[in-house]
């Protein structure tokens, strides 16, 4: 049992194995995610009933909520990947942490933008210092910090470790930040105009949301795999297997050109 685990661990640390397995995984994630997204979005946009308070603008929920959820859990994933890298010295783990940062930041931006757009018809203004928007903004700042540290440190190994440490410290702080922002918001909000949904969403509104959330997660995996594979190729560009891979591609494309 222990030796098998150990072998799996070594395999997971091997870039070649990661490259091969991630190619396969990402195909599956792409297929499943696309089906989920397509059904979820079409259902949410065209078939779900309008909200009795917000009308049709509530349909933004099907992109806003998945983006928010995902960008938050992506930060935790980044911190966990960094922790694994720091403690068990697993190089692939650092690669995963590194590629999550820009994706998570892009999702946080999407969440902020869609939140602002949703706010316009709901609150009558583009931006309010609502607890959720504010803590998402701070999360975006946390992502900026991690990205900045990758950019600032030239030595790869040092940058990976420093960013992992920062991500871990940040993720410890996330609950504190969230709590304080929520508390601050309830203190300062003069009139409570929150986006409180009805306690129970109608299933025909709720199911497409679940579909898009899972769809986003699948696509997120595809993005992580794609970027991580790029990192692997770049890092291993002098090894035999990468060269063989590139040559095989070259060969295939030449044959394809002849035919």
């Amino acid at each position: 049992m222990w030796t098998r685990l150990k072998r799996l661990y070594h395999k997971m640390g091997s870039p070649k194995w990661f490259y091969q397995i991630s190619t396969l995984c990402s195909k599956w994630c792409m297929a499943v995610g696309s089906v989920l997204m397509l059904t979820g979005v079409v259902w949410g946009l065209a078939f779900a009933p309008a909200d009795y308070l917000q009308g049709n603008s509530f349909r933004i929920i099907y992109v806003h909520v998945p983006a928010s959820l995902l960008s938050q859990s992506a930060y935790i994933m980044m911190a966990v990947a960094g922790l694994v890298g720091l403690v068990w010295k697993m190089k692939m783990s650092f690669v995963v942490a590194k590629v999550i940062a820009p994706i998570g930041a892009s999702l946080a931006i999407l969440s902020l933008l869609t939140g602002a757009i949703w706010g316009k018809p709901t609150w009558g203004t583009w931006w309010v210092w609502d607890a959720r928007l504010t803590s998402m903004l701070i999360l975006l700042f946390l992502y900026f910090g991690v990205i900045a540290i990758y950019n600032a440190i030239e030595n790869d190994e040092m940058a990976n470790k420093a960013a992992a440490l920062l991500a871990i410290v940040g993720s410890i702080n996330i609950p504190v930040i969230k709590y304080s922002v929520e508390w601050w918001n309830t203190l300062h909000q003069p009139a409570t105009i929150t986006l409180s949904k009805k306690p129970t969403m109608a299933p025909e509104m709720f199911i497409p949301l679940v579909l898009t959330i899972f769809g986003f997660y699948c696509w997120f995996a595809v993005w992580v795999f794609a970027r991580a594979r790029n990192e692997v190729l770049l890092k291993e560009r002098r090894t035999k297997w990468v060269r063989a891979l590139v040559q095989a591609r070259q060969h295939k494309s030449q044959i394809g050109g002849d035919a």
Partner: protein
Amino acid sequence: MSRQNFHNLDASPNANGQLPMLSARGLLCERDERVLFCQLDFDLFAGDIVRIAGPNGAGKSSLMRILLGLSAGFEGQLFWHGQPMAEQIHDFRSQLLYLGHQLGVKGSLSAEENLAWFCPNARPDEIYAALQKVGLKGYEDLLTHALSAGQQRRVALARLFLADKPLWILDEPFTAIDKEGVSELEQVVIKHAQGGGLVILTTHHDLRVPVKTLMLGGQESEMPLC
């Protein structure tokens, strides 16, 4: 994979029947995707004076930082008194005196104050005696940025007389020291080794001291006794 598997050290004792103080097995160091050295094995015994030599860029300071435990980018194992270094790190550090390329001497403190924090257990009269030995008598109360480069280095060198640590790791200790000072320092190093200490150093000076050389930068590393 840079995961360390801890083996037990299989080293043979030297002629005096001692076990090695500091050993390395299969050290590999990479910098910017260039292998500086690999499969580096050595056993260093109490009483040795070891000079790490090699051309520029051969990894002399990298090796030193690895030995000190300040560098993480290496593979292989280090052993302190036959035990894996990771388990002995406290013992190793409490027996280590390191003089770096940068001295750690604060310009806005006097020579005496600088030494007082390096060696907190030393009494003031011991500090004065050590400063006298490195030829800084009368400079004890002067702020060190008023001293010359050589004198500042002597302040750092005074630590050799104060702390009773068996392992000395000295990075270019003779820089900016005059001829007389160099030969005095050589005597100090010899005396320390004879007293059962281990000295590891890098230098561009030709030492008039019996040293072992740890050659880096060749295809294989060799350790002839000069």
